[in-house]
């Protein structure tokens, strides 16, 4: 009865883990890079488990000595345990390397110990495992190594897996080698192409994120000024709001632990931080470590700066803002691409100059959005490298030739 309960518990735990893994695979795009790496290691480990299990009957099938019979599968099993242990302690990159060592070991075992074609398939499986990790250096190093070993293996043992219908050893070996090299090279090309695309997209995304931060900082500044004008207090100073956050936090926390006092204290500390210089608290070595740690973590969610929470709130708000249907030029800000007609481009350049010169777009020395750009600042902007995203060299030259007219009339 005891064993029955124990085994049912184990089955329940395993099925629970499986469910969680399937859920993670289904939502893998929302995982962090570290979490994805851990998931990949878990998947590879499961597959390796199958190959290690298969090595048991094969080990005896190939009439190895009984010591080897036992030692080889145990060795691989130990490597798998080590890989899993490394993921548990969050050393996922090391776990990745160890999973690759395991599959390389298995490949060498299968092709070295057996004279069967299925062992050769493992070269492709190994390359697939390495590709799965999507790390070009790892692929070049381990992938290149295993491909080289594959070539060497065919050179040395090509006779062992020559087909019954083959025309001869030379062509059989050449076919094996060409296809293995081809497989490696095609995936190398795929790596380079996708890395290039991914890096460009990522660069654009990161820089766009920074621009967005600037807009949102402006919006927040306007809102602060609006409160000042109307002589109102910000929401985080409202005791009712503070109590509400505390009550809701305690309510959620009750699902995890009975004592609601601790989280109520953290909520109090959260609102306290709004009136402090946060960097002073973080850098104050006399304060307890836990206090500084909370300050670092809560900093992301303060309401008086353009924090992550404020950004998410603004982004959320944009779901409700009026939008237009998609047009080709919707995300285009370069006058050269926006307008085909030269006169339109010139008018665009003039309007852009006028906008920068008359509309408030800069902070003053007190941190308020109240300053416009001067003619000299605009000229500097126009000739800057970053501004090629808006106007062409031709337009800059036109501007420089007629700068006095721009300054006088716009």
């Amino acid at each position: 009865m005891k064993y029955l309960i124990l085994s049912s518990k184990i089955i329940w735990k395993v099925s629970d883990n499986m469910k969680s893994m399937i859920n993670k695979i289904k939502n893998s795009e929302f995982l962090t890079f570290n979490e994805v790496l851990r998931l990949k290691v878990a998947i590879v480990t499961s597959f390796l488990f199958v190959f290690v299990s298969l090595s048991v009957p094969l080990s005896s099938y190939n009439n190895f000595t009984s010591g080897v019979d036992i030692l080889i599968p145990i060795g691989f099993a130990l490597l798998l345990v080590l890989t899993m242990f490394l993921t548990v302690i969050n050393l996922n990159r090391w776990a990745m390397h160890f999973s690759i060592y395991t599959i390389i070991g298995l490949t060498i075992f299968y092709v070295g110990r057996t004279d069967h074609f299925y062992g050769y398939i493992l070269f492709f499986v190994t390359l697939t495992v390495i590709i799965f990790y999507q790390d070009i250096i790892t692929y070049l190093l381990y992938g290149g190594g295993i491909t080289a070993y594959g070539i060497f293996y065919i050179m040395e043992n090509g006779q062992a897996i020559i087909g019954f219908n083959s025309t001869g050893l030379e062509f059989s070996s050449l076919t094996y080698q060409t296809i293995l090299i081809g497989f490696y090279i095609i995936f190398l090309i795929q790596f380079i192409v996708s890395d290039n695309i991914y890096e460009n997209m990522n660069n654009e995304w990161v820089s766009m994120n920074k621009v967005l931060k600037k807009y949102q900082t402006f919006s927040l500044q306007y809102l602060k000024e609006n409160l000042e004008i109307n002589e109102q207090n910000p929401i985080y100073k409202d005791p009712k709001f503070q109590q509400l956050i505390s009550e809701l936090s305690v309510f959620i926390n009750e699902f995890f632990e009975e004592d609601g006092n601790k989280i109520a204290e953290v909520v109090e500390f959260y609102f306290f931080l709004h009136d402090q210089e946060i960097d002073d608290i973080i850098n104050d070595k006399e304060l307890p470590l836990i206090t500084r740690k909370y300050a670092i973590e809560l900093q992301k969610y303060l309401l008086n700066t353009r924090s992550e929470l404020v950004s998410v709130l603004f982004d959320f708000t944009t779901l409700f803002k009026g939008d237009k249907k998609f047009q080709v030029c919707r995300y285009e800000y370069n006058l050269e691409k926006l307008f085909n007609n030269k006169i339109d481009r010139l008018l665009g350049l003039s309007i852009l100059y006028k906008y920068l010169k008359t509309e408030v777009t800069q902070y003053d020395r007190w941190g308020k959005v109240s300053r416009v750009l001067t003619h000299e600042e605009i000229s500097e902007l126009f000739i800057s490298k970053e501004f090629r995203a808006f106007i062409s060299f031709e337009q800059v030259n036109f501007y420089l030739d007629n700068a006095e007219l721009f300054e006088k009339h716009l």
Partner: protein
Amino acid sequence: MKQNTNKYQYEQLERYKESLELAHLKTKTIIVNAIVFVFAVVVLYFLIETNVGTSMILSTMTMFLVLFIMNFAFYSYDNDHYNNLKIAMYINTLGVYVITIALILKFQTPSIFTSLFIAYALSAIYQDFKAMMLSNFSLFISGSILILRYPDIFRLSGNTDSQTFYILVFLIVFVLLLSLSSYILIKRKTFFYNQLAQIKESEVRNMDLLLEIEKINTKSELDSEAYYSSLSKFSNELSAKIGISNIFDRKIKILRDANVLSMQEILEKYPEYNQKEINELLNLELKLNNKMRKVGIKASQSQGIEVTRKEIFSESQFKSFNHQGDNYYVMIIAFVTFYALLKIDKPYLSELEEDKIKDILFNSEYFHRIDRNIINIYLENNEVFDTIVKDYLEGK
């Protein structure tokens, strides 16, 4: 209740994602065709060297030729380029499998069987979900049929036992691993397309929001008339300086008229311009259209945006209430503050109904920005949340 995390995504995303993908699909189509060409040359060499006969060489090369012609046709036909290239992609995926299967059936050796993996690798370049599923399926079905139906292919000269069971098991495990890996990789790739498209749209909307908040503060609109007057003076002086008649004047008049006239009336009043030209010109209009204001805002903030190598591939850029390593209390406080702010009237966003908040948090990517346990507690107890908010903010 079935979850649909796309319910609240910006409606412009799909079109932009398509245009992004199209640019990449063009490059990939060229690369795949170049590799298929090299493959064809290698196959031709082997066919000649093995003296298989002219008919075999001709039939195999014809298959390659048909593939190239179809690719060329789909690539050249400009109308609905995106879908044409997608069709070319599926044709390539299946086409290369057909060629390799034909080669396997001709030679019936284990070495040529591995060319199926080359067919798989070629389709992997596309990194397209449907193409990969098609490729995985083709690899599994063709591989299994060849193993079960033609076991002689795997007979080795030195070992008559072909051990097809092990080959089949290895193939199944291989295909499963490929399917899972391509599923995860393509999902992540699609996610980045989505993120990029989303941030582009988010930029447009955040600028709109900024203009709206600015208007709340300044309580004034942009003085478009002052712009047009300055433009008129400037264009007069410029024309005089260059020594030409004022070619800008008519266009500035159109910009002024756009506030009061319909498109039809503009076309009748200015017959020298067609609708396309007018539409393009209206991007310069300042009273009804925010395009130039957005160019101005973006341009004014263009300095100091640098991306360092360290920031690339950094997940810290993703804004969420679910950061790894954060204390649970912090995650709870972050979510609760966000939720409470949605329940409060703000100058830029009115308070939201409880049902609406629940629907958005469940059916949007915000679901994934919150810790799974916390969001589940909210979704199961949202009425309690609502009651607490009402209790505390009564008479706010």
